[in-house]
């Protein structure tokens, strides 16, 4: 078939495949030709982004379900197939991924000097995996991409990271892997339960959505999914891998980690955990909401006293992701749309923050706040970018952060006043730690001789910072295009959620499956 037809019918597959192909081609490049390798990688990611734009172009705003769906039987005898699709929930996270990628690549020009080839290969593999995670609508396929993400990230941290990189890399890998293996068991269980009830083997998410799962089983399956996603988000008590990973990872790694990988967790909650197990989700809501709120405050407080800029940003992520979780578990339109938007926002602004940190790190090879001060005078352009990003991370109106946080809190306030109230204080703390950090880094007199002759951002750095700033303002000033495309899907989600919840509580045809028995007998008093 011709290229056009290919794009026409297999756009999403192309999106998934392209980076991988790029990586494969990259293997044939000579190790010395760093320039060629970099440019080629950049080219691939840019093309990827352009292609993903056509997804937006072809996206039907009115449709709630999956779009541009492709399904190919994979292991048909077990109902496992390759199904990809995009809807209002995944659209913008997908776009975020493809958008952040070229920027990240561009940021590594001078940062990554050794083993450039391998680095770029891993980056491209990573992109395939991430895109796959957000597009897969077959549980098995999803899990494969989900795990696949770990390997390249593990290498990025472990090989190109700081001095405690190995500890950080292994911690990251084991932490998240341990979390997700239980999800695998849960997926299997769900799969067999579906078979036991309907007599059909399938991993097709859309089919599994239609299944009504008995409450006790839901609780256990949800628990497993919760672990996997909570580790990834990361939610409050499971967050300690994040600061290590962020601090040790190379700039590019941190950016991807913050911008996309963390979203895999929140996205997972929305797409899988909450959608599949509504009753359990509802049951768990108090716990999760409490954890989220604690995360918001806790992350902010701990961020405030950090000495290392990257660590500070890492903890601020814990705080921001807390907002997202809170929004998701409001189960209403404002909350969820706000959460999705906030995922994108966090991706953009925190990603930008890490790039900012990377820029000074490249120049001074330190990230300790105390090493800086008074930079504003020598690097005005940098100061400007830093300021805008800081404001967006604080959530000042007019920047993207505000819209997201406002919608989230608005949604939460409707269902859980006090959670919203406490969470809103996080907005104050955010201002405190970000501005304090900004002040200590940029303001005051230059105390450290080395900072006297810092070079301001060069053309390349401006080139990759600019798009981020633009989106920060765009989403802040005119978020409609983004919100409008979520509406239908989120609406459908909320309504289906309610319906399924009622059905399950009504105890409709449960299907006395092995599993149901297993949990009823062994873990009787699950509730």
């Amino acid at each position, binding site marked *: 078939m011709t290229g056009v037809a290919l794009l026409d019918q297999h756009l999403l597959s192309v999106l998934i495949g392209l980076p991988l192909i790029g990586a494969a081609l990259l293997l044939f490049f000579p190790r010395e030709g760093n320039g060629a390798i970099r440019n080629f990688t950049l080219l691939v990611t840019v093309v990827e982004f352009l292609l993903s734009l056509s997804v937006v172009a072809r996206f039907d705003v009115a449709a709630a379900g999956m779009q541009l769906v492709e399904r190919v039987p*994979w292991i048909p005898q077990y109902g496992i197939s390759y199904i990809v699709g995009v809807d209002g929930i995944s659209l913008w996270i997908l776009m975020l991924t493809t958008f952040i990628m070229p920027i990240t690549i561009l940021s590594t020009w001078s940062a990554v000097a050794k083993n450039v080839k391998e680095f770029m290969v891993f980056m491209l593999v990573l992109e395939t995996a991430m895109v796959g995670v957000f597009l897969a609508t077959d549980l098995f396929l999803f899990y494969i991409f989900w*795990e696949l993400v770990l390997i390249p990230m593990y*290498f990025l941290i*472990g090989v190109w990271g700081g001095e405690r990189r190995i500890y950080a890399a*292994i911690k990251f*890998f084991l932490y998240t892997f*341990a979390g997700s293996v239980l999800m695998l*068991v849960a997926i299997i269980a769900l799969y067999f339960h579906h078979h036991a009830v309907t007599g059909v083997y399938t991993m097709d998410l859309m089919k599994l959505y239609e299944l009504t799962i008995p409450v006790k089983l839901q609780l256990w399956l949800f628990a497993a999914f919760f672990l996997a996603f909570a580790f990834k988000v990361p939610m409050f008590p499971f967050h300690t891998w994040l600061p290590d990973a962020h601090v040790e990872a190379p700039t590019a790694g941190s950016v991807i980690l913050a911008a996309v990988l963390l979203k895999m967790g929140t996205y997972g909650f929305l797409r899988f955990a909450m959608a599949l197990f509504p009753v359990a989700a509802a049951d768990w809501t108090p716990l999760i909401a409490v954890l989220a709120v604690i995360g918001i405050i806790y992350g902010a407080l701990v961020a405030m006293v950090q000495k290392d800029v990257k660590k500070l940003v890492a903890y601020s992520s814990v705080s921001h992701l807390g907002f997202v979780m809170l929004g998701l578990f409001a189960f209403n339109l404002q909350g969820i749309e706000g959460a999705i938007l906030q995922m994108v926002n966090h991706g953009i602004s925190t990603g930008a923050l890490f790039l900012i940190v990377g820029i000074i790190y490249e120049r001074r090879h330190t990230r300790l706040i105390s090493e800086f001060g008074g930079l504003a005078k020598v690097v005005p352009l940098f100061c400007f970018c830093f300021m805008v990003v800081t404001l967006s991370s604080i959530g000042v109106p007019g920047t993207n952060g505000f819209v997201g946080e406002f919608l989230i809190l608005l949604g939460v306030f409707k269902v859980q006043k006090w959670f919203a109230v406490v969470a809103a204080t996080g907005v104050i703390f955010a201002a405190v730690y970000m501005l304090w950090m900004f002040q200590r880094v940029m303001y005051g007199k230059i105390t450290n001789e080395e900072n006297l002759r810092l070079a301001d951002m060069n053309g390349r750095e401006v080139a990759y910072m600019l798009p981020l700033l633009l989106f920060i303002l765009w989403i802040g000033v005119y978020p409609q295009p983004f919100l409008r495309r979520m509406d239908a899907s989120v609406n459908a989600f909320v309504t289906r959620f309610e319906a399924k919840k009622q059905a399950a509580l009504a105890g409709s045809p449960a299907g006395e499956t092995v*599993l149901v028995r297993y949990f009823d007998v062994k873990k009787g008093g699950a509730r």
Partner: protein
Amino acid sequence: MTPIPFDKAALVQGLYSILPELVVIGTAIAVLLADLLLPERGKKSLCHLGIAGTAVAILAALSLGPGRIDGFSGMIVHDGVGLFITLTILATTLLTLLMATGYSEWEGTQKGEFYALLLFSAAGMLFMAKGTDLMTVFLGLETMSIPIYCLVGFHRDRMTSLEGALKYFLLGAFASGFLLYGIALIYSATGTTKIPAIAGMIGDLRLFGNPVFVAGVGLLLVGFAFKVSLVPFHMWTPDAYQGAPTVVTAFMAAGVKAAAFAALLRVTMLIFPALGPGMTNILWVLAFLTMTVGNLAALLQDNVKRMLAYSSIAHAGYILVGLVSVDVAGGQAALFYLLVYAFMNLGAFGVIMLLAHREDDGYDIGNFKGVGFRYPALGGLLTLFLVSLAGIPPTAGFIGKFYLFSAAVKNGYVGLAVLGVLNSAVSVYYYLRPVVYMYMLPAPGEVPVPRPPRTAFSLALCISAAAVLVLGLAPRSVLAFAERSILSLLM
């Protein structure tokens, strides 16, 4: 006094049913003869002869097809399972021989008996896998083991090798004692040693309550458990594996496991269900112990060879999970995993063989520092195999584990499945350690030059790698094949 009727057809059918075995044995003998004729420098063609023979055997096996062929009045049968395992074993043998080309050169195992022994024990494995009579199984087991004892101790002037061999031998003999006694008891309780016949009698409760019979089955299980090295019958494994010449280690780990599990599969599938939950509980416990002990012990090994030995114990545990749930899904998963394991295990051993650049202390993990970027191909391959062993997508190892655990979940052994996945989470730690050394730690000085892989050797690695990836990405046909095999066994 009528002369014994000579049933030509039966004989032919019998011979036909063991065609691959015949080929392998023939090759072995041929190798021995050729060894006499060939001049010293021509020895390496012995290996090529062996390779050719094995290839032919594979073709022979394929030519038999999946259909059921009984031979020698039900002493042996060529059926689905038989074919599947036969192919697994022959593939193992082939890869081993391909690697042996290189290995023999470096370690001076360029001898006729070396290859002959390999082939003989391969033949033994085949018999064991296809035996439907406990006696055949026993004979096959011995035919497999005795040559391997020799192979393990092949470097007879190297203490480790000899020690490994002796330990393996003594315990092996000890264990086959149990196996035999089990067979004897079963025989005296049922009057037959044919597995299907026993399965037929299982129905009546007299047998079920008969201590002699039950004890017999128990001892039988002990015998097999020893061969597949289930905890606590595993003690010999690390030592034997570490002591043995590395090719042999690879061969044992994959081949012996396959053969023994095939036999165990027949027994469990046909006899255990009758013995009620007791047997299942035992298997459950064994599986758990084996996984856990294997992984934990492997955690801190600095000798990569020994680490892989423990990991092979752990993998025996995973496979046993498939057997715990005595049903099609489980058996099929086990079969599939045996095949996958053969490839990833041989691949891993192959790469470390190259990286070690000398026996014994060459396998210290420290030698791997900085290899990854210096020798990208080797580093990449080893990483691939280790990732697959760890059961991380998109490799065959993941698919294999996925089906093993899903079988467990399907039959309500959720607890076991959870323990299994947690185990594999733990195992990630030690599987990634070589990766850490290869990529994340700088070499102290100049990275030691690995052994130069010969064409055959690299071919072996490529085949394994390809298999690991293909079985990981497109496993449908093989899975279907495994399923058919198990079904054919049950009817």
